[in-house]
């Protein structure tokens, strides 16, 4: 018979293993991506050295870093231009997307009439519309903004529309029982119910507005005042300044990742108290 006086273990072996797993996962979440990244950069460097790849074809990581530092002021001002377009487009996409979604939620007829246009805008590649836009719109900034907006607004519109419709039917009934106005139902019920959907759309739209801005800059070309990152990449490619191209691409990717991380944080901020998607589960 086991000694019942012995102090009980705090955790049984299965739970201990679980706790260890959780701890390792926490560390792994950061260490693994960094490790893989470091290995990739190392492999890239070795590849260039072993195969004696000239730096005007594939520059070694060190050269890219040097270009990044050397061209820092130039690249930063270009990044500023691109970011201005990106965030302006995102802001307009949020206002336009949510506004249209609210309008759609008010009337099925409006939705039926206009939703097809939203789909057409979404499925037609921006690269083929952009040249037309730059012909019709005089201001280059406005042209870039329109292009980035077209790319970014659809996920916000379609997600928010879905969200506004997904409010609990019984709650809708209850609102009408208590004599709530249309505006009150929207404010107290439909908009909060749509928030998780909207934030999901925003996560996609954030990245898309950057892509939209870059693509539009490419189409707008090297003429005029455009000096965004895409312009720098085009310019550098004409001069075979490959390290600068790499440096600019690096900046674009990094910006995209930061935007995504910010949107993820925003989702967490608004949802962690109540929405299933953002709640940590205790097993």
């Amino acid at each position: 018979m086991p000694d019942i006086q012995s102090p009980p273990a705090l955790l049984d072996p299965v739970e201990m293993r679980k706790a260890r797993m959780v701890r390792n996962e926490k560390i792994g979440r950061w260490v693994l991506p960094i490790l893989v990244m470091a290995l990739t950069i190392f492999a890239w460097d070795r590849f260039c050295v072993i195969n004696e790849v000239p730096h005007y074809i594939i520059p070694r990581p060190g050269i890219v870093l040097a270009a990044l530092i050397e061209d820092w002021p130039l690249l930063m001002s270009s990044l500023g231009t691109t970011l201005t377009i990106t965030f302006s487009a995102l802001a307009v996409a949020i206002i336009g997307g949510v506004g249209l979604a609210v309008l759609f939620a008010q009337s099925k007829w409006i939705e039926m009439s206009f939703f097809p246009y939203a789909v057409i805008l979404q499925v037609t590649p921006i690269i083929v519309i952009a040249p037309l836009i730059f012909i019709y719109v005089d201001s280059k900034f406005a042209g870039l903004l329109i292009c980035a907006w077209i790319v970014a607004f659809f996920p916000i519109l379609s997600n928010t529309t879905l969200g506004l419709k997904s409010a609990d039917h019984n709650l809708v009934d209850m609102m009408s029982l208590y004599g709530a106005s249309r505006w009150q139902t929207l404010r107290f019920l439909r908009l909060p119910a749509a928030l998780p959907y909207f934030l999901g759309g925003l996560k996609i739209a954030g990245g898309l507005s950057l892509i939209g801005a870059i693509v539009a800059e490419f189409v707008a070309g090297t003429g005029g005042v455009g000096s965004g990152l895409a312009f720098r990449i085009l310019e550098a490619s004409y001069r075979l300044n490959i390290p600068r191209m790499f440096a600019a691409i690096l900046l674009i990717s990094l910006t995209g990742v930061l935007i995504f991380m910010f949107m993820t944080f925003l989702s967490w901020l608004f949802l962690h108290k109540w929405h299933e998607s953002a709640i940590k589960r205790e097993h």
Partner: protein
Amino acid sequence: MSNTNLLSLKDIGKTFSNGTVALQGMSMDIEQGSFVSLLGPSGCGKSTALKIIAGLGNLTTGSLKWPDTRVDHLGRPDHEISFVFQEPTLMQWATVFENVWLPLRLKGTSRKAATAQVSEALGMVGLADFATSYPRELSGGMKMRVSIARALITRPKLLLMDEPFAALDEITRFKLNNDLLELWQKFNWTVIFVTHSVFESAYLSNRIVVMAARPGRVVADIAVTSPYPRRGDDHRSSPEYNETCREASEALHAAMKAGDHM
């Protein structure tokens, strides 16, 4: 207690656009202060009847009258009606406080002005300490209590309940049954309680209206004479209770047979 009628249904019928006859020729008077259960198999139109009374659905035929009550141009009474659904039907994004505050908020009452009333309502359902919790942090029974607190905050004259405790475990259900009866007696509400449980209807109500399906209609109207307060197991083992259960059960079986399904 006066025995005037709060509302009177006359020959009510409801046919949905797909041709389903949800209700046919339903007539009944609901006495002020009574606790009426609508008992019947699923599809007998009991929820439809409740929604019509709440003003959430139109009638196809017949009339719904509120004697002794002023009505607006839509025929809705000027007193408060509250509705408790089978699901707690809470706003997940709002705290318990905000959920209970909602009916007052819709009438323009500020958070500050509503605080005393909300606290009182939460106290009555035993959730005084949970004002700042979110619905997901509560158990099923507690969520239902929030739903009841929200229903009673407007001090309604008529409380409509659509199988409110059907999804709860038996212990929680018994507890909530007793709490509901206590609140009913305290506030002198009129309650219309939809259920498919013979035992629940016999325990709670002073009148059981048994309905049959296809088409939804009233097939029996049973007066329950056992006095209140009815206390838990004592009452559940009393001969009157058992007699009521037997009577309601037989009526329900007859109703099931009358409906063309099992």
